[in-house]
């Protein structure tokens, strides 16, 4: 047994145990770790933002850039300043301008993503092709999957009562959804257990030195 002499390992180990103590019940150790975590997180977020966006996207183009379009960046700066209006009771409504810009941006950005990445790719994958029937088992599997896609979509049909054929199809859709959710859940268990194994190894190997 070789207990670590590195004070940082000790700090990490104590913080690890502090978080785990939450599993028993809320306690001052967890509260300590939680508040430290939130403090570090916001400082970390601020540094990350600075490093990943303000410097490369705002400072560099404005200070060192030569492109005439760089002055367009003054618009988001202005919108950003408007959002600070929230500090004043009288001008707090100014925040609606940057928010309105966001709304427009959401719309503009999500529509292409929806088409390009999801709808077409998924629909194309769903269409049964000759090659999907190269052997009987594969064929059956693909038909089963095809029914799964179709019935799930009918479950999300909102503007009609789920009765008759639509009702039956939506019902099958829900069964498929449940089967899929169960599979996803079971699939993830392994990865989650390995996380705990990782922490145990840290405690028993790096910290306490019980195992090699």
């Amino acid at each position, binding site marked *: 047994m070789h207990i670590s002499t590195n004070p940082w390992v000790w700090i990490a180990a104590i913080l690890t145990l502090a978080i785990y103590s939450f*599993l*028993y019940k809320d306690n001052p150790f967890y509260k300590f770790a939680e508040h430290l975590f939130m403090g570090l997180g916001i400082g970390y977020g601020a540094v990350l933002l600075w490093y990943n966006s303000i410097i490369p996207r705002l400072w560099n183009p404005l200070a060192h850039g030569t492109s005439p379009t760089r002055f367009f960046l003054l618009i988001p700066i202005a919108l950003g300043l408007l959002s600070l209006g929230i500090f004043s009771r009288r001008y707090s409504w100014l925040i609606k301008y940057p928010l309105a810009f966001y709304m427009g941006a959401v719309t503009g950005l999500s529509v292409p993503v929806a088409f390009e990445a999801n709808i077409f790719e998924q629909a194309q994958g769903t269409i049964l092709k000759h090659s999907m029937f190269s052997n009987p088992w594969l064929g059956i599997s693909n038909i089963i999957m095809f029914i799964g896609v179709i019935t799930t979509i009918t479950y999300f049909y909102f503007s009609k009562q789920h009765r008759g054929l639509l009702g039956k199809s939506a019902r099958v859709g829900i069964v498929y959804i449940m089967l899929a959710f169960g599979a996803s859940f079971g*699939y*993830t*268990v*392994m*990865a989650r*257990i*390995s*996380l*705990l*194994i*990782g*922490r*145990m*190894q840290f405690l*028993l190997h790096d910290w306490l030195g*019980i*195992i090699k």
Partner: protein
Amino acid sequence: MNGENISFWEKLGKIDRRWIFLIIGLVVFIPIAFGLRMTVHVSPAVKSAYDTINSLPEGSVVMISIDYDAASMPELQPMLKAILRHCFDKNLKVVLINFWPLGLPIGNQGLEEVAREYGKVYGVDYMNLGYRPGDIAVMLRMGTEIRSVFYGDIKGTPLDSLPMMKNIHNYDDIAVVVGLEAGSMGDAWVQYVNARFKQDLILGVTAVMAAGVYPYLQAGQIKGLIGGLKGAAEYEKLVNHPAFGHIGMASQSWAHVTIILFIILGNIGYFMERRRKRGL
């Protein structure tokens, strides 16, 4: 007599979840603490990864890409160590590279640890390139000259002052690239480096990703695939050095079985309760 039995099963159905936490904790803890192992069955995908490295002549260069951070460390670090052991055992030269800046210290720690075991010398037998931003651009530029992106190693030492780097300039000088992946960089290795340079590739990925990467193996775009802790354990078995992968696998298996037992007990409790309620 039945009264007591029923209430026992029913209690089981509503057991305080902290007991579950305790049992799961113990089931994972005991195999690790006491080094319990599990017999591991080597899959063809891992065997093929092992064979690829095993067939390399002494002195060949293996590049290992650390494309993960602390979150996936439990699964991928054992793989890294097993592969490093294999390489050092076969006197292959190792170049580490990082595409996840936060994985830098993790990869370096694993490299130094295994190198020490084998008495290998930095700059002669192994080295670490570190991280340069640019992802795919970095990958592609290394195809012509590594020095066009990496001016120095992880500590800033110029590459030409490291003896082993004298003859390493681009992918032509690298026998195999091993990508240890927790995200999309594995796809980039296949789609850019394999496609453009016919570079031999092996991928080690997290368990969640394994199914998605499998088609690359079937298409022959990668030479081998190591998936999750299970894959790491298989590789450990092949290099004859059972370590965390093996121990972890025992914990993993027992934890799965325990969870399934919980589900069964929960259902028994539930049906007992329902039967009693119907009886009333």
